[in-house]
């Protein structure tokens, strides 16, 4: 036998570990993006009311995400009480579901925005220091 049982065991478990690691990396990436996307959606809604498709189109053109990702985020914001929805008739199409920021949503956006900008500027300064 060229490969002892222990050796096989070891190489096998190694493989598993690598798989877990990449999966965790992906999961982290998704979590990270989700938080930022939430903030982006809030930012759009702070300017005016948008309907779901509009938001999805706008963000998927700017950020590399699947088109379907935005709807769960909108749902989460609604269940958190940050946005409300209303239907509005549109010419030549089904009624559109518009999303609108609530008072809580506005407050939450203001504080999250400040937090994020502070955080981002800190990260940026650290990364730039690292380079030189």
């Amino acid at each position: 036998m060229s490969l002892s049982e222990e050796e096989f065991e070891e190489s096998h478990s190694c493989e598993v570990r690598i798989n877990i690691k990449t999966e965790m990396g992906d999961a982290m990436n998704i979590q990270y993006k989700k938080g930022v996307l939430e903030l982006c959606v809030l930012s759009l809604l702070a300017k005016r009311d948008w309907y779901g498709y509009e938001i999805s189109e706008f963000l998927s053109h700017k950020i590399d995400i699947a088109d379907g990702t935005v709807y769960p985020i909108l749902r989460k914001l609604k269940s958190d009480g940050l946005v409300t929805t209303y239907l509005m008739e549109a010419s030549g199409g089904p009624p559109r579901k518009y999303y609108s920021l609530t008072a809580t949503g506005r407050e939450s956006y203001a504080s999250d925005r400040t937090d994020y900008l502070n955080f981002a500027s800190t990260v940026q300064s650290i990364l730039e220091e690292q380079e030189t």
Partner: protein
Amino acid sequence: MTKQEYLNELKTELNKNSITDAEDIITEYEQHFLFKLADGYSEEEIAVKLGAPAHIAAQYAGIPGEKKAKGGKKFFLVLWLTIIGIFEVMLYGAFLWFIVALFCASLVPTALGVEFIIRMNLMNILPPMPYGGALVFGIMLIALGVILFLVAIYCFAYLRQMVRASLRWRKNLMSGEALPLLPMSPQFSPKTRRNLRGILLVSVLIFGITFIAGYAILGIYTHSFEFWHALGWFGYPATIH
């Protein structure tokens, strides 16, 4: 995947994750298809760009409070937990009384030991023996009391931890939270554990040594292996006074 295939799969995935308002979500994605089709994309393209239905359903499932707390399901959960709860309370109750009994039981040898040592024969219940033997047996009885007391403490810590673990488990089930489950065995701090173990070890040692020493003392004193006969315990006629 065509539009209909995509929506069907999404519906299946949403139901699999028991998401509330699956219809509402489907409508949203259906509209997405309509808008995109109007922009000139093919159904296949749109489906690919949307992402896998399973992934989307998983994102909905990740939203707290979005999972169906179906009336029926919840009812059976409560019923089930109540039935288990009745048995649990019976078990914990029995265990608690056992612990109370252990505490009381630890007092008896301790009190007897003290009586032996200070030569106080309350209600004339102590068997006759020379003071040397009484002193050693007194220490032995106190050590026994300490051992029982420690066992009671350990059992109590065990009971407490079991109740806490059970409550945590229930909380997770009822509110859909995923707090880490607690271990069932008692959780002492390392210092407390060391102290308890030290006291127990010393007590057991003292108990063993004094038991042998007391037996030896009385055996030598009475010149008999069955000294209780010679001393007139348990109603035997005493041969030594």
